[in-house]
C-alpha cells in the first residue's frame, strides 16, 4: 500500500486533492458546519503530517479540524462518506513514476496521474459541486421565516428554523451571562490593588480599592404546556429550551399538561433529536388535556422550594386553555408571583391579530403576570430574548 503525505503525492495530485477539499468545505458550510479559513489552513497543515492514502486517518484529521460539536459528528460522517466515496480509495501505484518524484516527470504523464487520482477522489460525477449551491439558495429567505408562524411551517422550513432557534438561544445565553459581569457592584476590598495603590503614598494605605463580587447567577424556571392545544408549537419551544439549557447553567425546564415532568436532565442530551425522543417517551401526558392550575399548584408545593428564589425568572408557556378549577389557578399564580422575581407568560395565540385573552385560564392568570408576550415565530422568540437579557 502506498503511503505519502500531501507534499509527496505530486504537485498535480495535490492540487486535485486541495480542490476537492475546498469543495468539501463548501459542502460542510452549506450544512452549517462552521469551516473558517483558519480551519481550512489547519486541514492543509494536517495533511502535511499524515498519510493521505489512509482513509481513516484522513477522516479523523478532517473531523478533528472541522467538527466542534458532538451533535455534528453524525452529519459530518454522512457528508464525508457521500463526498469521498471514490471507486477505490487506494491510488494504484504507477511503476514508471515513483511517488514523490513525479514533479520532475514529463507533463503528460503527470497529467495522467493527476486524472487517475482525481478519479479515486471523485464522487458521483461532480454532482457535489452543484449541490452546495442549491442548498445555500434554499437557506436564504431568512427574513420571511422569522415572521412565519410555527404552526404553518413544513419540511425544510422546520429544519431551518430549528437551527435558527438553537443558534439564537445560544447567543442569548452568552449575552445573558455577560450582562451579569457588567452589572456587578463593588463592595469587597481588593487587597492586591489596595497594596499597589498604597505605593503612591509611600506604602501607607490611604485608599481602599474595592472589588466587585460576582452576582449570583439568576435562575430561570420554564414551565411549558405540552397539552393537545399546544401541539404545533411544542416542538419549537422545546428546541428553544434545549438551546438555552445547553448554553447556560441554572435553567430548569418542566413540562406539564395534567401533571408535571421535569425534563432538565433530558435536555442535556448530545443532540436535540435524542432529547426530543426521550422527552416524548418520558412525558406520559403529552398532548393530553390541561390542568394549569393544578400543575402550578403542584409545582409550588414540590419543586419551587429548590428552584424558585427572589432572583428567579419564572416563565410559563401556555395558551391558557384550562380545564381545571380557576380558584386553584388563581391561588397558584398568586403564590408564584410572591416567590419569583418576575413572572412572564408566553402565549402562542397572542401572535394572531384578532386574539383576545378571553378564555378563563388567561383571565385568571393575567393579573399576576408581569409580562404577557407572544411566542409563535422566531421574531417573537427574539423579543422574548431581549426582555430576558434586560432583566438579568
Amino acid at each position, binding site marked *: 500500500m502506498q503511503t505519502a503525505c500531501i507534499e509527496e503525492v505530486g504537485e498535480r495530485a495535490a492540487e486535485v486533492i486541495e480542490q476537492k477539499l475546498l469543495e468539501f468545505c463548501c459542502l460542510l458550510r452549506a450544512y452549517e458546519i462552521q469551516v473558517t479559513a483558519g480551519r481550512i489552513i489547519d486541514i492543509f497543515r494536517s495533511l502535511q503530517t499524515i498519510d493521505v492514502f489512509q482513509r481513516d*486517518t484522513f477522516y479523523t484529521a478532517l473531523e478533528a479540524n472541522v467538527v466542534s460539536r458532538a451533535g455534528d459528528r453524525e452529519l459530518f460522517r454522512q457528508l464525508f462518506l457521500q463526498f469521498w466515496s471514490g471507486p477505490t480509495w487506494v491510488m494504484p501505484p504507477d511503476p514508471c513514476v515513483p511517488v514523490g518524484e513525479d514533479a520532475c516527470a514529463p507533463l503528460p504523464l503527470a497529467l495522467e496521474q493527476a486524472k487517475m487520482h482525481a478519479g479515486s477522489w471523485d464522487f458521483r460525477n461532480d454532482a457535489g459541486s452543484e449541490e452546495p449551491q442549491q442548498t445555500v439558495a434554499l437557506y436564504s429567505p431568512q427574513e420571511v421565516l422569522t415572521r412565519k408562524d410555527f404552526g404553518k411551517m413544513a419540511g425544510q422550513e422546520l429544519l431551518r428554523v430549528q437551527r435558527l432557534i438553537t443558534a439564537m438561544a445560544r447567543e442569548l445565553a452568552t449575552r445573558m451571562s455577560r450582562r451579569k459581569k457588567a452589572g456587578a457592584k463593588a463592595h469587597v476590598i481588593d487587597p492586591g490593588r489596595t497594596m499597589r495603590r498604597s505605593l503612591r503614598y509611600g506604602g501607607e494605605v490611604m485608599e481602599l480599592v474595592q472589588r466587585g463580587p460576582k452576582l449570583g447567577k439568576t435562575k430561570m424556571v420554564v414551565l411549558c404546556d405540552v397539552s393537545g392545544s399546544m401541539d404545533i408549537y411544542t416542538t419549537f419551544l422545546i428546541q428553544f429550551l434545549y438551546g438555552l439549557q445547553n448554553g447556560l447553567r441554572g435553567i430548569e425546564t418542566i413540562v406539564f399538561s395534567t401533571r408535571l415532568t421535569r425534563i432538565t436532565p433530558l435536555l442535556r442530551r448530545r443532540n436535540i433529536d435524542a432529547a426530543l425522543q426521550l422527552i416524548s417517551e418520558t412525558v406520559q401526558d403529552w398532548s393530553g388535556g390541561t390542568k394549569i392550575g393544578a400543575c402550578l399548584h403542584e409545582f409550588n408545593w414540590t419543586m419551587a422550594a429548590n428552584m424558585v428564589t427572589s432572583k428567579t425568572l419564572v416563565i410559563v408557556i401556555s395558551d391558557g386553555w384550562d380545564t381545571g378549577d380557576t380558584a386553584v389557578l388563581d391561588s397558584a399564580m398568586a403564590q408564584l408571583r410572591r416567590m419569583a422575581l418576575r413572572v412572564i407568560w408566553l402565549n402562542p395565540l397572542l401572535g394572531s391579530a384578532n386574539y383576545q385573552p378571553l378564555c378563563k385560564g388567561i383571565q385568571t392568570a393575567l393579573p399576576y403576570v408581569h409580562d404577557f408576550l407572544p411566542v409563535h415565530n422566531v421574531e417573537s422568540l427574539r423579543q422574548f430574548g431581549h426582555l430576558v437579557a434586560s432583566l438579568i
Partner: protein
Amino acid sequence: MEFHSIEALQEAMHTHDYICDRALATIVFLALKLEKPILLEGEAGVGKTEVAKVLAAMLRAKLIRLQCYEGLDVNTALYEWNFPRQMLHIKIAEAAAHATAEQIEHELFSTDYLIKRPLLEAIQSGMTQPTVLLIDEVDRSDEEFEAFLLEVLSDFQISIPEIGTMKAERPPLVILTSNRTREIHDALKRRCLFHWIDYPSFDKEYAIVRTKVPGIAAHLASQVCQFAEAMRQQDFYKRPGVAETLDWARALLYLGRERLEVPTIEETLGCVLKYKEDLDKANEDLLETILNTIRV
C-alpha cells in the same frame, strides 16, 4: 520525544497502559505536529483526563493541571501578587530604613512575590521543558473565563504589567476536557482539535480492564465488561463509565469473587451506580435479566 508515525504513538500510549483507538492517536499526533490544543468531550469516566496524564508521562513532560469551576477567575488561573508577603517586605524595609521607595517597589513586583497559577506556570515551564497543560472540565467555568482562555491559548503569551511579557518558547501541549454540561463557545472550539471519546467497545474495555487490573481472571474481566456494556443500554441517570468498570473489577478482585452472581453484584453495585434513583432502579429482577444476557 518525537513520534514519526501514528502507529508509533499509539504503541507508546499502549506501553503507558492507555488503550487508545487509532482515531485518538491520530488526533494526538496532529496536535503535536500542528501545536494545537485538543478538546476532548465525552461522558464522565471514559478517560478524558487520563489522556493528559499518559501523554505527560509518555513525553516526559511536566503535567500542569487547571481544574475549572464556576467562578474561576483570572487571579486563580493565571497569577496573583503575594500581597501579605509584599506587606511584610514593606514593613521590614521601613524598619531597616535601608532603601528608597523606588527600590522597594522594584523588589515588591519581582517574580519572588508572584504566586504562579497554572496558566502562568505552564507558560514559564514551556520555556525550559516540554509541558502538558490539562484544562479540566472547561464547561464548568464561566463564559468570561472562556474568553480569557481563548486569548492565552492563541499565542501563549502573558503580559504582567509590572514585569513584562512572558512567552512560551515551545507552546505546551494543551488538553481541554468537557463533560458538556453546557456548550463551549465556538471561538474556543475553533482553536482546538475536537475529539469525542465514546464508551469503549467490549474488546477495548476488556483490554483496558486486563491492563489496569493486573490480577483479574480473564473470565471475570469478560463478565464485568459485558455487564457494564449491558448496563449502559439501560436508562440510568448516570451510566457507568470505564472508571466505574475499573473500580468494580478491582472491588471484585479484592473480595475474591470469581464470577458474577446477583448477590455479588448487589453488594458491589455502589462501584457502578452512583445515584440513589439508579440504585433503586437496578433491583434484583433487572440485575438477573442483565446477567442472563451475558454469554459465559
